[in-house]
């Protein structure tokens, strides 16, 4: 636990000592703000549903960008050798890094609360419960995408490759339930269950079902476990 915290602090500091975190936060807020307000006045509803539709799309590119360097950079500059010979478990390295990246993304997500507060000022009959579950869903999706991103980062020492592989994995999860029409009916149920959007829409509707939580938890766990195994595999290289 104490090692996870040490790694977490180190990673978070390295995000914020470089311009990377600030650029990320500002651009994320601007992009979301643009797409949200673009259509907001057309609908003329005090509703955040359109925001919850935009964020997962922006995630597709932003999250792999944040996570691409987490491990690949350590590999390319060689510090992975120092990390791996310190008395820390690979698992703790992965979890610490994962939580740091996730923190940055959640901070970015919470910049969109700005729109919520605006809505409270100008809107009427806001469903606060739906906003809460919507954010919960987005946070969980961020968790899955970040886990996929750190896994992609562990596969290579090239950050560009990590970025592209990250996008590819995340895209598969994002698109799965949109491609259901092309899948034989017998597989449709499984594909739908694997898709993040399916679970996100359940939660966003205000239904917090344990099945959805189990899904997010197990996909995150799966990617973090795989990342740990990839890190450990260097010993046998």
């Amino acid at each position, binding site marked *: 636990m104490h090692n996870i915290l*040490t790694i977490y602090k180190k990673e978070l*500091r390295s995000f914020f000592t470089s311009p990377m975190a600030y650029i990320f936060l500002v651009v994320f807020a601007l992009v979301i703000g643009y797409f949200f307000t673009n259509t907001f006045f057309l609908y003329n509803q005090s509703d955040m549903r359109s925001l919850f539709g935009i964020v997962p799309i922006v995630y597709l590119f932003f999250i792999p960008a944040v996570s691409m360097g987490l491990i690949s950079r350590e590999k390319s500059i060689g510090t992975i050798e120092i990390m791996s010979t*310190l008395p820390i478990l690979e698992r703790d390295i992965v979890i610490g890094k994962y939580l740091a990246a996730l923190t940055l993304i959640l901070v970015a997500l919470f910049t969109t609360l700005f729109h919520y507060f605006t809505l409270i000022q100008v809107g009427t009959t806001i469903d606060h419960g739906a906003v809460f579950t919507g954010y919960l869903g987005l946070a969980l999706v961020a968790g899955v995408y970040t886990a996929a991103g750190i896994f992609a980062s562990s596969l290579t020492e090239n950050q560009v490759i990590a970025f592209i592989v990250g996008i590819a994995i995340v895209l598969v999860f994002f698109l799965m339930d949109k491609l259901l029409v092309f899948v034989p009916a017998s597989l449709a149920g499984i594909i739908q269950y694997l898709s993040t959007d399916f679970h996100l829409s359940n939660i966003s509707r205000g239904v917090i079902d344990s099945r959805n939580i189990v899904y997010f938890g197990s996909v995150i766990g799966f990617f973090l476990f795989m990342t740990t195994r990839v890190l450990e595999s260097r010993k046998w*290289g």
Partner: protein
Amino acid sequence: MIQIENLSKNYGDVKAVKSISFTLEDKEIVGFLGANGAGKSTTLKMITGFLTPTSGNVIIDGLNIIDDSQEIQKQIGYLPELNPLYSEMKVYEYLKFHAEIRGIKGHEFKIALEKVVVDCSLQGIVHRTIGECSKGYKQRIGLAASMIHNPKILILDEPVSGLDPNQIVEIRRLIKKLGKEKLVLMSSHILQEIQATVDRIIIINQGEIVADGSSEELITDSKGLTQLHLEILNANENDIQNMKAIIPSITISSIDKQDNSIIVSLEYSNSVDPRKDVFNYCVEKEWVLLEMRASKRNLEDIFRSLTGKGDSAHA
């Protein structure tokens, strides 16, 4: 104490390290010498737990690297080859990160920090960003981080490569100082470097240990040869050839006829000393011995012959 037992490492079909064994004692400075690609770094990476051996084991104070790698890593300080560092971090932050992983906090950290800053002469740059420091400083920052927890064992992979001569002297002095209280295992492909710093040299070639001992021991190793140069007046070649029959321990390598004298080169094993017999033989033949000079092979010759680059590089 480190015991290396039949350690091997294969990368696919390539056998990088072939079943090597040796023991290192506490408070010993050991140089691990070999040409590039001889298996030095691979061996060090196995000792530090970065790589798992294909077979064999590393035992440190009763713990082995396969089952107890975390416990062993707590006792080791390791400076990898090329000294990788986080260039965006401040020196202080970097050392603090290492200390935290090692469980050194608060007042304890202050004491540890002060010690490594003094030992590695980092005064004045502690609050600087690592990327802005010179190469010599970076090397010392890496070294400082590897010893922040005052480990019993320090493993340094090519600690002086790429440094200028003044920096090399400084690091060398530091390593010698550290060797009084720690077991230091350092690798290098530069003989002079090793010779100037360490108590004991282990030479590795193509994954196998080919020599192990102090530099004096390696030179006077019984397998080594001494060359004897003679210049003799009034001698004849036949009698010189016959010397071998009288003194069997010598080998005549060359006979060179000058105007008046003859220059003879002999070789004999370091384990014997036939110079008295050679002298008596000359007296018996009523030759005049103008010169007799013995020369031992130096460490460089030994290194070259052991690492398979012997004759061609001798010039």
